[in-house]
């Protein structure tokens, strides 16, 4: 099954790069239609490939050419380039035209220069990214941030003004230095989290695509960028999910929300599919169930800073399942539990 998977992932890439033969396309087609999982792999691959192509094609677009085409269309004429202009160029250039040109040069230069000046006035923005592992950093106010892989935080070199504002993309744990007179604000797309000395977990792009926040201690206010007056307050132990334009607050039931940071995992009669999801997240691995009947197996266990390998060994021993670990994919197989 896993061999199959590797073969078809290769075939999908060949299909998109137009290397696949008609017979192979037929073969791929029946594989895709075999079951929803295969169709999902294909659909996700197509989305990623097309998104890449969109970015690639856009990157290659010629802005100069587009601007010329636009000018032709709306009939902007640049006098210096028009036919009449070049015929006249042998004559002495009248004074007013010289003035006009100088003025034009100033206008065009003045704009970028103005922006550059404004930009230089602001404190430099620093960017800190976690890459493929976890990473931690201290912010200029002493607040501590732990980023999970792929997360990026941007913050000014110095917090000037009345607020401490940072922007976050991804998953992170914040321990914010207390400073009541200077609120700490985390900005993500359209959502603002305002903090008053506190620690909490935040994920701006959870698996479901929603924004998630779990508060460990202190107090946090959550609001939409365009509705700062309508904030929701979170208490410790609560979890907020922002789904579309709704903020949903509920008690946090996920005991392992911090496991990516602490590598402490506890399962309490947890179904195996959710165990697989937690392990995938904590170990940055791709842990999957070979068949869906395995989801009926439940696990109760605690792991403290153990390797994925030893966690998998425990699964094998307690649940009577088989595990194949190829590095890129961990597949749990077996008959399922009752």
């Amino acid at each position, binding site marked *: 099954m896993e061999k199959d998977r*590797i073969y078809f*992932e*290769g075939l*999908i*890439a*060949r*299909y*998109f*790069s137009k*290397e696949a033969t008609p017979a192979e*396309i037929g073969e*791929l*087609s029946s594989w*895709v239609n075999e079951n929803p999982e295969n*169709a999902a*792999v*294909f*659909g*996700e*691959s*197509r*989305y*990623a*490939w*097309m*998104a*890449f*192509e*969109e*970015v*690639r*094609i*856009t*990157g290659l*677009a010629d*802005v100069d050419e*587009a*601007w010329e*085409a*636009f000018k032709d*269309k*709306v009939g*902007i004429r640049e006098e210096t380039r028009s036919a009449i202009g070049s015929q006249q160029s042998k004559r002495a250039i009248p004074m007013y035209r010289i003035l006009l040109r100088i003025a*034009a040069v100033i*206008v*065009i230069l003045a*704009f*970028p220069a103005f922006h550059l000046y404004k930009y230089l006035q602001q404190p430099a923005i620093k960017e800190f990214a976690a890459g*493929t592992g976890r990473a931690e950093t201290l912010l200029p106010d002493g607040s501590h941030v732990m980023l999970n892989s*792929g997360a990026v935080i941007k913050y000014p070199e110095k917090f000037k003004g009345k607020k401490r504002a940072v922007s976050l*993309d991804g998953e992170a744990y914040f321990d914010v230095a207390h400073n009541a007179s200077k609120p700490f604000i985390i900005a993500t*797309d*359209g959502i603002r989290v305002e903090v008053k000395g506190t620690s909490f977990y935040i994920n701006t*792009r959870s698996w479901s*695509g929603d924004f998630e926040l779990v508060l460990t201690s202190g107090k946090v206010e959550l609001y939409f960028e365009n509705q700062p007056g309508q904030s929701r307050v979170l208490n410790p132990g609560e979890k907020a999910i922002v789904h579309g334009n709704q903020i949903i607050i509920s008690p946090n039931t996920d005991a392992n929300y911090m496991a990516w940071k602490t590598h402490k995992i506890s399962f309490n009669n947890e179904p195996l599919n959710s165990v697989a999801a937690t392990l995938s997240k904590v170990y940055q691995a*791709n842990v999957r169930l070979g068949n869906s009947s395995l989801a009926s197996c439940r696990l109760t266990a605690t792991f403290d800073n153990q390797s994925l390998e030893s966690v998998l060994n425990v699964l094998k021993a307690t649940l009577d399942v088989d595990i194949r670990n190829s590095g*890129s994919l961990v597949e749990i197989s077996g008959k399922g539990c009752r």
Partner: protein
Amino acid sequence: MNPEHGLSRSQFEILFRTEYKGMLLFAIHYVKEEEAAKEIVQEAFINLWEKRESINPEREVKSYLSASVRNRSLNYLRDNKRFNGTLLSLGGLLPMPAAEEVNTIEIRELSGQIHRAIEELPEKCREVFRLNRFEQMKYQEIADHLNISIKTVETQMSKALSHLRSRIRQT
């Protein structure tokens, strides 16, 4: 001209040059066809040009522009119901998903995710992928060029796509 209102010719050129690619990506994401997308973006700029004297350059321009590109893209899709763009003639295996509503922030994010994902690829894998996508080389040509087996090219391409897939999730 009142400096508070309206765009001068040079301001317009600056706007065009800074926003063009973002708008193009926005349109391509909807219509999946390069030429159609270029036309849509040009029309949106022409429409803006016609209104340049009444528009507030600080505030409205960008949202006006992106709304205009989005509406034109959706109209284009409505009028051209076939959904197999020339960008990628990938019909066949599964029906194309319906156009999702996106905004320019999401598009900018998508572009960032893709750049990051490409940077994350191991060097050899990235080189194979680059030769295929940017130099338009066939697998065999890449194998000859890098003096590796075609099997290795296949593996690297598959790896690159799997990585992209794991990083670029449709939300």
